[in-house]
């Protein structure tokens, strides 16, 4: 099975103290460290496991610039066979639809049976997978937490449903799936592994290579623009529970039950 996994390099929220920049339209990026978007990492692990079982190859793709190559290498150190960097000045400032357009063009240059994305990334939009599927006119399943390969070009996929329920579906290939964390336990990528792929040539494609009109992507083609970005004031929503320890525990359990945290 030929699998394409779309990955993104994101600021690592657990390793950073996020502060707003002076203009107030973005976060301060000087002291940031980056890593692969967590959901994407699960997607790559899943792709590797599928290929281990049924054969084929895994290609990881990202839209960005040379700095983003690092995440492709990390995923290749993990076990992905090929990397593909989609880089062009014209891609700068793309909105979700723009990114999906670029990815669609890349998908059409290859011959993939299955396309995986993370369920969402740092922006929290969770839109690329769905848009990409629509543009490619292939079926789509979101927040997938299990995949089994069936005979006859089909997959059985599990999806996480509100309230902790589980749905199982059959889906035809080719398709796009957006992957939920917890679908597997991604393997560790050691420094030795990264060094091993450090000198592997990663092909890069620009708008012309992909046959894209520069005005359809990037800030020129964007139809969504960010207007503001800020940390909301912390409200005084905290509720202090009072009483003896037993009473507090009882109240807490009641509240957790009421909010669906306990069953």
């Amino acid at each position, binding site marked *: 099975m030929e699998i394409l996994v779309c990955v993104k390099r994101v600021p*690592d929220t*657990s*390793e*950073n*103290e996020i502060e707003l920049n002076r203009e107030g339209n973005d976060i301060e990026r000087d*002291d940031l*460290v980056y*890593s692969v978007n967590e959901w994407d990492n699960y997607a790559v692990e899943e792709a590797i496991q599928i290929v281990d079982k049924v054969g084929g190859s895994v290609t990881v793709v990202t839209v960005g610039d040379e700095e983003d190559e690092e995440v492709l290498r990390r995923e290749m150190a*993990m*076990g992905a066979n090929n990397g593909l960097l989609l880089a062009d000045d014209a891609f700068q400032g793309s909105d979700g639809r723009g990114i999906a357009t670029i990815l669609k063009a890349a998908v059409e240059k290859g011959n993939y049976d299955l396309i995986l994305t993370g369920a969402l990334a740092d922006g929290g939009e969770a839109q690329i997978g769905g848009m990409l599927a629509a543009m490619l006119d292939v079926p789509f399943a979101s927040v997938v937490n299990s995949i089994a390969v069936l005979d006859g070009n089909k997959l059985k996929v599990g999806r996480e449903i509100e309230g902790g329920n589980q749905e199982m579906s059959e889906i035809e290939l080719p398709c796009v799936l957006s992957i939920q964390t917890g679908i597997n*336990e*991604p*393997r*560790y*990528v*050691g*420094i*030795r*592994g990264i*060094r*091993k792929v450090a000198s592997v040539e990663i092909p890069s494609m620009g708008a012309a290579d992909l046959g894209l009109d520069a005005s359809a992507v990037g800030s020129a083609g964007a139809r969504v623009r960010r207007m503001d970005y800020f940390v909301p004031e912390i409200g005084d929503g905290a509720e202090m529970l009072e009483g003896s320890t037993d009473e507090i525990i009882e109240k807490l359990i009641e509240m957790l039950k009421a909010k669906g945290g306990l069953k």
Partner: protein
Amino acid sequence: MEPVLASPASYDLFGFIPLWLFSLIIPVVGVSAFVYIVVRRSAPLVRAQPDPRLNRIPERVGRVVKLWLGQYRHPRYRTAGVIHIFLFAGFLILSFQSISMVLMGIKEGYHLPGFSGWVGAVYDVVKSYAATWVLAAVVVAAVRRVVFKPARYGVPARYGGKPHTFEALLVLFLIATLMITESLYEASYAAAEMNAGGHAGFIAPLTLVWAFSHLLEGTTTASLQGLHVGSYFIHDLTFFFFLCFLPMGKHFHVVTSLFNVFFMRLDTGTVKPVRHGVSDEQLDDLDRFGVKYFEDFTWKHLLDFYTCVDCGRCSDNCPANAVGRPLSPRFISIKGRDYAFKHYPLSGEIYKGKELIGTVYDEDEIWSCTTCGACEQECPVTIEYIDKIVDLRRGMVDEGMVPQSLQKPLGSLEKRGNPWGKLEKKRADWAVKDKEFAGKTRVKLLDKGDEAETLYFVDSISSYDDRMQKIAQATAVILDTAGVDFGILGSMEKDSGHEARRFGEEMLFQTLRDENREAITESGVKQIVTADPHAYNALVHDYGDLPPVKHISRVILEAIRAGRIHLNGSDGDGKVYTYHDPCYLGRHNQLYDEPRAILDAIPDLNRVEMARCRDRSFCCGGGGLMLFYEPEEEERMGVMRVRMAAEAGANVIVTACPFCLVNIEDAIKVAGLEGQMEAIDLSELVVTRMEGVAEPEPEEKEAAA
């Protein structure tokens, strides 16, 4: 005087079969079989990885004299140890007798060279007593095995559940047979002499020979002749059967322990290189990293497996085993040995096994080890565990088999140089941002252009953890008071990488080491001080090419002795203190006395020792990355440790390691002993005792520095 009985060498069975023929065939067959078995057993060692151990010969001879010949570690378990010393001494003494008996059956009246005159006479007396005490020791050992069943010999269900009693008893039976037949052989002759009215020579009183010769008094000479020859051949057969049986199980140690001790790891605190003979630069090109297959172990580590006596002392002292983690060092060895026996059979094809993880060892088993070193400290035959565990982890890391709980901190170490992923620029916050502290104690920042004689290497936990920053501050106050001109690397300091290395991420460790080494060299400091035993161990044993490194306890003690630090008394605070030895200060670096001397320098301080102290200290739960690991366990090590302190009657646990303090403070809460038990770092305690003591005048300070 004419011989009263025909010797085995001159006796003809049924009057025409010369028995010397058998006395010749038995050893020839026995020795050939033994050599064959040993050659087959050596096959995996030949295929294993290199491990140069022929250095520092005088030291190695010294270890053999102390640990092998002197049985130094045995009495740590009093009963078993004393029994073993008797058996071992008996074996050594009787080995000469056994060899001469074998030859006596071929050549009548044979004596080993030098054993004919008075030496032989003295030896006969000594060996008669030896045979007697060996038999007595065998009886006591058998009774212990069968009646008292010490728990450490048990085999938990996880490892098959079948106790290894049969092998133990069989061997005891063989030894008893050897002692009895050897004595009967001599006693029958002595009795025949008495029958003949002749003088029986000197028989050492109260020995087996003495007892048997009295029992045999009055037996016909013909029967004695049968007994004499019969006991000889039973002895001969048993001896060679035993010899060939040794390499079949744990009694292989009789042969291998001498070599295992000679080739032992001489240093503590170290970790073996990934592959001997492969430089750091070549590591990227290795196609196999660490231990994945059995043959990836070094030959010495395989010899360890053969040498394991299955005595259970390692596991009895293993904190991971004590809290129910799925690790028992004893079975690391026994499973390794069983693998060797199975895949390298005595006859037939040698075959390659599967990867060890998932078949012989489990991931959780290998991650459970805190590398505290209690097992190695205890092992009477100097089996190594830490290097094996680290090598197996290296193999797992290379395959990506790392628990999710450890992936995050490893990633943060790579990106930020500390396992919490905190910002590099905040590494010196404890020294600068706390205004009250900074107002009193100035800490030079070597990354900001300051210069100092001494580097205080803080390491990650004391730099970033709110609670442990107090240790860093106390250390700085002490250095300042002692008149040490010191500074810190601040944002240039990276985690020492001590645990990164011990968790198998060698390349990450090397990156951190190189960055730290460069920063230290550039800072131009003349010496290094640290309060973190893990950092201390890394700087001393893992780094190399550094200025001299001291742990703060040594600095404090020197300052007290030089009169630069004065401590006021505890004035009957009613507290009872106990000192918990951190593994990487005590067992790995032998700093046992300094912290105790400091405590004892505080007037009126009431200090008690826990039952487990010094080199038998019990790990608090492990430091560095072990703080992030989520083990399967029934209880926390720290909780057990806190209870040990309570049993000793203490209500203050003093330690000298930030990780110990984290674990013990948590454990006090978990054990529900808040208010009854407290934990404090040695540096913090010293600082509280310095308060109110007049500081030396500035001139004195300079003079002292």
